């Protein structure tokens, strides 16, 4: 059982950073909402408070890792230009998609949207983590601030869902492959 280096990095980008981030969303909304609703009446142990902060900082970090690995490692592989006369475009995903009107939309809508919308998430989640750490239970006293935090969190969820969803489809129609093969498992 083997996997190419580029496949492995793509999996790390999508499943390691992106999917883990998506999984953390319900927890983040729960933490923000519960803290805000309970307000100053909610006395939580220092360890729990630290864990909440760590949780949101981890989410923000995951979102940064996802966009940075996507834009600066995988995207250059995706948009690589094939030498003139190349007939096998399997190593050039963007050109492969654009070579047929049946698949061009995956680039023109999917990748064009994904490559930008994903960046709303780290901006939003960094702000959310900062506000939560700064105010904690005092968010209950600032209803408008709580609404903004939850609103930006929801937009971050939407942006990640769009980027992740199109990422999965793009990798199905024009996978980013290449690099040396890594053997994960050998059957004896």
């Amino acid at each position, binding site marked *: 059982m083997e996997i190419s280096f580029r496949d492995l990095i793509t999996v790390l980008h999508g499943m390691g950073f992106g999917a883990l981030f998506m999984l953390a969303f319900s927890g983040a909304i729960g933490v923000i909402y519960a803290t805000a609703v309970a307000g100053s009446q909610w006395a939580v*142990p220092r360890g729990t408070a630290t864990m909440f902060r760590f949780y949101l900082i981890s989410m923000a970090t995951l979102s940064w890792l996802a966009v940075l690995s996507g834009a600066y490692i995988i995207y250059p592989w995706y948009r690589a230009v094939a030498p003139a006369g190349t007939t096998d475009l399997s190593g050039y995903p963007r050109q492969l998609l654009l070579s047929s009107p049946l698949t061009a939309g995956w680039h023109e809508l999917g990748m064009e949207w994904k490559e930008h919308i994903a960046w*709303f998430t780290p901006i939003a989640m960094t702000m959310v983590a*900062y506000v939560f750490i700064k105010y904690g*239970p005092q968010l209950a006293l600032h209803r*408008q601030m709580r609404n*903004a935090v939850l609103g930006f969190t929801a937009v971050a969820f939407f942006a990640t869902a769009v980027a992740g969803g199109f990422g999965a489809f793009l990798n199905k129609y024009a996978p980013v492959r290449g690099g040396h093969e890594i053997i994960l498992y050998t059957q004896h």
Partner: protein
Amino acid sequence: MQSMRDPIQLPNGPGAAAILAAGIGSGALGVFAFAADAFRAVGRAFVIWPPSGPLSGVTLAAIVVWLVAWFGLSRLWASRDVSLARVNVAAFAMLIVGLLLTFPPFADLLRGR
């Protein structure tokens, strides 16, 4: 047992600064992405790292705008209470502008394609 409670109520300025800056950064991302796609010269100017093309400059510029805005607003509102309702309206308006300008069908419509 220690708690998260803080008896001193913090001013809303620092939080408002973070929220408005996030809106400004999001709006800037949309404007830069649209401009890079609509105008070839702008697109070329945004190519900071050729392997990633204009995306490298578009996102870097948006992040710089976001962080500069955050820094400036934080200093301005460090110990103040501001109208969060107005801040939210402005932040979400810019966020929506950013989202629309990065949605290819909408951007194509604006460009008349």
